[in-house]
C-alpha cells in the first residue's frame, strides 16, 4: 500500500514538475516584456533596465529557471506584475473562499446525485428514470456561466430571495466582525459561533454553489446510474437476491459498495471541474476567490498570477486524483491483484 502511494505521489510530483517547467518556458517565450509591464508605460529605458535586474530577467534563462524552482519550493510564486503584491499572499486570501464553494458543491452534488443515480438505475426505463437521465444529461449540457446568469435572474432579480453577489453583507461585516481563524469564512463563523454571519454567508453561497454543483451533479448521477446498472446485472447481485436477501441491503450494501470506487474517481474529477468552473463563474458572482483572480489576471496577462493559480489548481487536482486512487486501491479486488489463479 505504501509503495503504491509513494509511486503515485512520485508520478504526481513528476506531473507538477512538467507543468511548472512548461508554464515557466511558456511565460518566457510569449512575446511580451515583463519588465516593461512592471514599470508601466511611461517608464524610461533606465527604469526598464532596473526592473529587469529587480526581476532577475538579466540572468541567463537556466539560472532564472533554477531560481524560479527554488522560489516555488519556498512557496514564493513571485510578484504579480499588475498589483506588485506577492502572488502567494493574494492566493492565500482567495483560496479558502474558492475551496469553500468547491467543497460544498461537490459534497452536495454527491449527496443528491448519488441517490438520483441509484433511484434511476433501480427504476430503469420508468418515467422517473427518463426524467432523472434527462436532468443529469441536461445539467451537463448547460454552459455554467449561463446557469449562473439564469439563476441570478430567477432567484435574485425576479424573486428577490437571495443576494445577487458577493460573499457576505458588508454592513454585517462591520457590525459583526468575523475573526479569521482558518480563513474559511463559514468554518470561522461556526467556530466563533457568529451565527448571523454564518446565515448570511450561506445565503450568499447558495447561488454559486448551485451553479457549480450542476455539472458535478449530472456527472455523478449519470455515472452512478450506468455503473449501478452494470453492477445490478452482475451474477453476484442476482445471487444475493436468489438467497432472499432484502432488496434494501442488496442495493445499499451489496451493490453500492461496488459502485463507490468509480464514483469516487468521478467525484475527484468533478471537484476538478468545479474548481475550474469557478474561473468562469466567480466573476459573475463577484466572489472573492481564485476564479475572479485568474479571470482578471488573464485579461491583464499577469503571468505570475496565472501560473500561481494554475499551479494551485494542478496541485489540488493531483491530490484529488491521488486520494481517489488510494480509495479505489482499498478495494479488495485491486489489493489482491497478486492472488489471481
Amino acid at each position, binding site marked *: 500500500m505504501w509503495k503504491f502511494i509513494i509511486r503515485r505521489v512520485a508520478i504526481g510530483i513528476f506531473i507538477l514538475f512538467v507543468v511548472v517547467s512548461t508554464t515557466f518556458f511558456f511565460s518566457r517565450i510569449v512575446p511580451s516584456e515583463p519588465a516593461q509591464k512592471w514599470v508601466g508605460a*511611461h*517608464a524610461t529605458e533606465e527604469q526598464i533596465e532596473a526592473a529587469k535586474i529587480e526581476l532577475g530577467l538579466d540572468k541567463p534563462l537556466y539560472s532564472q529557471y533554477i531560481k524560479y524552482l527554488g522560489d516555488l519550493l519556498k512557496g514564493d510564486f513571485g510578484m504579480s506584475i499588475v498589483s506588485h503584491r506577492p502572488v502567494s499572499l493574494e492566493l492565500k486570501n482567495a483560496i479558502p473562499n474558492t475551496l469553500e464553494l468547491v467543497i460544498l458543491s461537490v459534497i452536495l452534488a454527491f449527496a443528491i446525485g448519488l441517490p438520483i443515480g441509484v433511484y434511476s438505475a433501480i427504476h430503469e426505463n420508468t418515467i422517473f428514470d427518463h426524467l432523472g437521465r434527462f436532468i443529469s444529461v441536461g445539467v451537463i449540457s448547460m454552459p455554467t456561466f449561463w446557469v449562473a446568469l439564469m439563476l441570478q435572474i430567477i432567484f435574485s432579480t425576479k424573486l428577490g430571495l437571495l443576494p*445577487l453577489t458577493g460573499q457576505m453583507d*458588508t454592513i454585517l*461585516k462591520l457590525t459583526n466582525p468575523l475573526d479569521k481563524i482558518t480563513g474559511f469564512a463559514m468554518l470561522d463563523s461556526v467556530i466563533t459561533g457568529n*451565527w448571523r454571519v454564518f446565515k448570511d454567508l450561506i445565503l450568499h453561497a447558495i447561488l454559486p454553489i448551485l451553479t457549480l454543483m450542476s455539472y458535478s451533479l449530472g456527472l455523478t448521477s449519470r455515472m452512478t446510474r450506468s455503473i449501478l446498472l452494470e453492477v445490478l446485472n452482475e451474477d453476484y447481485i442476482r445471487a444475493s437476491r436468489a438467497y432472499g436477501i432484502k432488496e434494501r441491503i442488496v442495493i445499499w450494501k451489496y451493490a453500492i459498495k461496488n459502485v463507490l470506487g468509480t464514483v469516487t474517481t468521478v467525484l475527484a474529477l468533478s471537484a476538478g471541474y468545479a474548481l475550474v468552473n469557478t474561473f468562469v463563474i466567480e*466573476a459573475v458572482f*463577484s466572489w472573492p476567490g481564485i476564479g*475572479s483572480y485568474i479571470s482578471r489576471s488573464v485579461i491583464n496577462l499577469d503571468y505570475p498570477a496565472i501560473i500561481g493559480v494554475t499551479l494551485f489548481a494542478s496541485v489540488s487536482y493531483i491530490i484529488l486524483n491521488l486520494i481517489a486512487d488510494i480509495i479505489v486501491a482499498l478495494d479488495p479486488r485491486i489489493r489482491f491483484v497478486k492472488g489471481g489463479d
Partner: protein
Amino acid sequence: SGGEEQQGNDNTPKTVTYVTHSDPMVFWDPAETWAIEIVALQNIYEPLVRIDPMNDNEFIPVLATEWKSSDDGLKWEFKLREGVKFHSGKELTADIAARSLKRTIDLGKGAAYIWDGVKEINAKDDNTLEFVLERPLPMLYIVSSAYGSYIYDPDLERDWYYEGNADGTGPYKLNDYSKDSEVILEKFQDYWGGWNQDQFDYAIVKIVPESATRRQLLVRGEADIVEQMPLEDVEALKSDDNILISDITSYQQLYAFLNTQKAPLDNKYVRQALSYLMPYQDIVDHVMLGSATQARGVIPPNLWGHGKDLMQYNYDLDKAKELLAQGGYPDGGFKLLYTYTAGDKNEQKVGELFKDALSKVNIDMEIRGMTVDSKYDLAKATDPNDRQDITMLYWWPDNVDPQGYMYSQFRTEKEVGFNFGYYSNPEVDRLIDEAIAISGTSIEEATEKYIEAQEIILDEAPAIHLYCENYVRPYRKDLKGYADNPAYPNAVFFYELSR
C-alpha cells in the same frame, strides 16, 4: 443572541457604498498610483490644492491654504494648513510635504513626470513649501493633478504599502481591504475638516464586475453610487424615482489612431476617407445614447486649447468614395486590423459600426479585442508593417492641461509611446513645443498655437477624433452633496456626502 442582534441594529453605522467595476487597489504606494486607485486614495491622501473644472477651474485649498508665485513665474510658495494630522497621528509639516514630493519625483513611477521642470522643493519653514522651477509652469494645475500630487508620509517603505496599508491626511482611513471584493474606509476622527453627524462613518467601495448586478444593487438601495453603467441601463434607471443621474462633460476623449506608416493608411486621402466613413452621429446616439459629444479636434471642449471653430468630419459616403478614388483605391478592396481593449464595450461597438460602414466601400476590417498590454505590444512592434492599422485610445489629462493630448499623441516620437498614428510633422512638433513653453505664462497664446497644430492634424488625419464622453453616474436620490469632478476621474469624495 437576540440581544446581540438588537444591539447590532442600534449600532448600525452610517455607510455609503460606491460600486465600481474592478478592484481599484493596484498601486498602493501614493507615489506610484496613477490609475483607478484614485477611487479610494483621493479620500485617504490629499494634495495641496484641488481644481473644480465645473466651476470655471476654481482652485480649492486643501492642504495648502494660500499660494503665490514670483513675478517671473520661477518660484512658487504654498502655505500649509495648520493642525493637519496623518492617520498615524503624525503631524504634517512642510518638511514632510517636501520630502514626500521629492520621493515621488525620485521614484519616477506613475505620474511623476508631471513635476518635470521643477528644480527644487524646499521647506522654507514649518508650513511654507517652496518650488523652484526651470521655466514657468502652471503650478496650480500641477499640484492639483489627480495623480502624483499626494502629500504623504515619506518615511514609510514601499513594502509597507504593498502589504495593503495606507496612511494619509484624508478624511477616511483604510479599514479593510479584500481583493476583488471591497475596500472599506472608516472616518478619521481627527480630520482637520471636522465632522458633522450626517456624514458617513464608513465608505465602502464595492467591486462588482457585472454591470447588471451593479444596477440591481443600486435599485435595491444596496449601493448609493455606481460607475461604468452601460448607457442602456442608465436610460432605464431614469424612470426610477429613487435614482438621480449625474451626467457631466468630461475630459475623456476617444481616438482611433490610423497607422500612417503602413499602406494603405500612409495615404492621406485614404485616412480622410476613413474619417468620413466613421458614423459619428450613430455612435453618439446609439453607442453613447447621447451622453457624449462628437469630438472637435484633439482637445476636448471644456479644456483650454480647444478650438470652437475647428472643422469636424461627418459621415459622408460620397465624399469618402471620392477620396478613396483620389487615393488610388476606387474599389476599396483592402483589409484593416482594428485593435481595442478587450472588455471595453464602447470601443467594441464602435468597431462593429465602423466595420459595417467600411463594408459599404468594400473595405474589410478585423476587430481584435486585446489585453491592454498585448495591444501596446502590437502597437510598438519594431516594424510598422507588423503593427495594427487602427487602434483605439482614450485620453484624459493627469492635470487640467492640454499638453498631454498634443504632446503624447501627435508629436514625433523616437520610441513609440502613445503616438499610435506614428505621426510625425516638424511643423506640428514646433507648434506643440512653443505652446508648452509659453503655457506657464500665457494660456491664450498657447491656445492659438495648439489650434494651429490641430488644424494641420485634422487635415492630415492621423487619427479619427470620435467623441468626448460624459461621465454618467446614477446615484440614490437620498444621497446629498454628490457632485462629480471630472478632474479626478471616477473618484468620489465621500467627505462631501451625507444622508
